[in-house]
């Protein structure tokens, strides 16, 4: 790393740390219903929304009702988007006259955006109309993020409240989150992005003449649009000349801002955040990177404030930062060391395949760890083309369960499940009843924590196994050998953990991945969410146990180290064998030559 890259990295984390406290404190106020500086403007809107939709804000819910409202809302979201995608060709704002989605792709995409995954088996500029992007996907980006945050807030209330069954009102949490937190930040961020060159318009695609026209071999297509093949199975081509190109347009900035802020990650264009219209300058790299980490980071402080001890939050944030920085270091080392098989051809060492010049190595790598540590999944680098050990870093961050900052809300509640497991294991070691934040951790909490952290991992391993014996799934690999396994494994890990990024060579728009992926995204989102809500319900009913001499302090460095170890051990035990067959095997191949 050169001095500039150190500065760039340091500046990002310093800005993040500087914003955690004010934003985290602000969010605590919002969810505790206190007045904030936005109240004079937004409180009337909020009351109007409740009146129109029939919500009684004082009507608090127990965990079953909270979970039920959350699920019902998400079902509504899914159905609305599913129908919108199927009927896209009948809806307005479709200047390119794009057709509707197939039902399999519509199912996958609707679930993907409802579950905050934003896995995309379609190409934005070729398949989605402005109406779909703006009225469908952008709205889902907001409310799926708000859903995750609402659940996290209910879980915090479960820890904090005593002898009650009530966790708050889902509709109120959802509304406040969208109005007070997501919309204002997204609005400002979108304008900053436009200032840098992110487009925001409703024009039809623009055709311009090329400065130098280009001769190329064009694939010949048969009547049904499939490539023609000759007798030996090679595609038939004819020579053609491109004299002009068509440049896609659209309301990109408004979607880009919430896509990063809500850790959604679904790109307006196929190239996602690598596309110059989504991500035109190094400044936007910094802004978007910060937006990705902002809310998941700040929620740790919201947790600390609501729990009455902000050090509890800083401890979790410390663990997240520690693991994120280590994976960044490995990735930066791997990518600057590059690929010896390419260097041997007379090329400098750093790996630039699938990267953009304007971001530089550090800008690409910081974004890569941020987008996979959180469940964002936007990419400014093609993860498929990372060096093997480099590519193992985003993969590992996903496999750890999206807790290294994690998705907005979901990162925090999954991390809390890990904290409970850490407390429980250490409690067993020192022979005391485990407690966390003054609540006794008993069998039920343990069960629910284990369900929360294990469901995605079990699905990833089982579905990868099924994929490997399904010819259709194997044929979708774009690269041969160990790398192909990494592609499949990454795809299923990404969907089960609601990340949404990909080793994108894999041809994911086939029934196998569309349908099994839909299942993985749904279970990966709602099983943990319901489990933590159930746990919150159980914890809220317990009385407060004041700390005694035998209580393990969970707001100090030793606990942070212990928690880090527990996370790494659980991750390594579950996934090391697959990692050895995929990226590690490929790394050895790369060093030894073919």
């Amino acid at each position: 790393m050169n001095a500039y890259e150190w500065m760039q990295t340091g500046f990002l984390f310093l800005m993040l740390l500087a914003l955690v406290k004010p934003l985290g404190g602000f969010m605590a106020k919002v969810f505790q219903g206190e007045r904030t500086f936005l109240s004079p403007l937004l409180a009337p809107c909020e009351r109007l929304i409740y009146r129109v939709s029939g919500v009684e804000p004082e009507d608090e819910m127990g965990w079953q009702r909270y979970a039920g409202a959350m699920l019902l809302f998400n079902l509504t979201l899914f159905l609305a988007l599913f129908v919108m995608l199927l009927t896209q060709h009948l809806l307005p704002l479709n200047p390119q006259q794009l057709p509707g989605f197939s039902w399999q792709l519509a199912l996958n995409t609707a679930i993907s955006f409802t579950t905050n995954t934003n896995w995309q088996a379609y190409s934005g500029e070729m398949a989605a109309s402005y109406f779909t992007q703006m009225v469908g996907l952008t709205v889902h980006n907001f409310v799926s993020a708000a859903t995750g945050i609402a659940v996290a807030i209910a879980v915090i209330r479960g820890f904090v409240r005593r002898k009650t069954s009530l966790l708050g009102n889902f509709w109120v949490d959802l509304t406040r989150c969208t109005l007070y937190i997501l919309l204002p930040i997204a609005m400002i961020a979108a304008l900053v992005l436009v200032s840098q060159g992110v487009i925001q318009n409703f024009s039809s695609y623009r055709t311009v003449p090329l400065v130098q026209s280009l001769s190329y071999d064009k694939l010949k297509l048969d009547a049904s649009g499939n490539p023609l093949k000759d007798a030996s199975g090679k595609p038939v081509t004819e020579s053609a000349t491109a004299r002009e190109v068509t440049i896609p347009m659209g309301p990109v900035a408004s979607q880009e801002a919430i896509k990063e802020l809500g850790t959604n990650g679904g790109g307006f264009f196929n190239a996602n955040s690598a596309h110059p219209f989504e991500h035109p300058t190094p400044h936007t790299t910094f802004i978007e990177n910060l937006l990705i980490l902002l809310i998941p980071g700040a929620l740790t402080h919201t947790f600390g404030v609501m729990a009455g001890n902000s050090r509890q939050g800083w401890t979790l944030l410390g663990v997240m930062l520690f693991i994120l920085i280590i994976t960044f270091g490995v990735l930066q080392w791997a990518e600057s060391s590059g690929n010896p098989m390419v260097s041997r051809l007379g090329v400098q060492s750093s790996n630039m395949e699938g990267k953009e010049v304007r971001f530089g190595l550090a800008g690409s790598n910081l974004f890569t760890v941020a987008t996979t540590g959180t469940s964002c999944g936007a990419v400014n680098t093609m993860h498929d083309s990372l060096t093997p050990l480099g590519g193992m870093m985003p993969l590992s961050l996903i496999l750890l369960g999206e807790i290294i900052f994690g998705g907005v809300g979901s990162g925090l509640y999954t991390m809390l499940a890990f904290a409970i497991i850490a407390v429980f294991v250490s409690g067993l070691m020192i022979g005391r009843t485990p407690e966390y934040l003054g609540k006794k951790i008993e069998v039920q909490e343990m069960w629910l924590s284990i369900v929360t952290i294990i469901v995605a991992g079990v699905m990833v391993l089982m579905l990868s196994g099924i994929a490997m014996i399904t010819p259709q799934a194997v044929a979708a690999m774009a690269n041969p050998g160990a790398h192909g396994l990494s592609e499949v494994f990454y795809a299923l890990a990404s969907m089960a953990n609601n990340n949404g990024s990909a080793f994108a060579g894999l041809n994911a728009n086939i029934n196998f991945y569309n349908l099994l992926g839909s299942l993985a995204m749904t279970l990966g989102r709602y099983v943990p969410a319901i489990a933590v809500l159930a746990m919150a319900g159980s914890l809220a009913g317990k009385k407060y146990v004041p700390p005694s001499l035998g209580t393990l302090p969970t707001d100090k460095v030793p606990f942070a180290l212990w928690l880090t170890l527990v996370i790494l051990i659980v991750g390594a035990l579950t996934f090391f064998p697959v990692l050895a067959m995929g990226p590690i095997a490929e790394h050895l191949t790369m060093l030894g030559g073919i």
Partner: protein
Amino acid sequence: MKEIKPAILLLIIFTIICGGIYPAVVTGLAHAVFPNQAKGSFIADSRGRERGSALIGQPFSAPQYFWPRPSSTTDFAYNPLASGGSNAGPTNPDYLKAVAARVKVYRDSGVTGPLPSELVQASASGLDPHISPEAASLQVPRVAMARGVSEAVVRQLVAKTTEDRQFGFLGAPRVNLLVLNLELDKLPK
């Protein structure tokens, strides 16, 4: 099931706010304050004809132009309707063959020494408008010879179109090739 009513109504309300009002306000403000950026940063040549977006690269291959990075977009290189990378894995034999072929093109044009990686490795978007100043520098002799102008003139244009790290430390220094090649075309013949 008394939650069905808020579920449906809140979705409608948020669709109006987040899917209607929010993008409309952003669009309105963007066009008032940054109209050029919001429309796509299009640039014109010396005769005032629109020649593309400064943010979207183009597939130059003639010797008198600076060559951009390889692009893996479908149909043809730098096809803006098909943004995306090669997604080639680092040990993929087809990928290594493609890189070797690209190296050969530069060797044939007279470039020696280790090549900057971005010149022979495809970008993530397939539309990367930039290369590093180093990668531009080693193309200067070819461009100058093809145009029959002195290397100093070409170098001056490269220096003029080089963008430094933003705010002095963000990202990497880079040369925008559409801008640079349009500048070259403005040189007196």
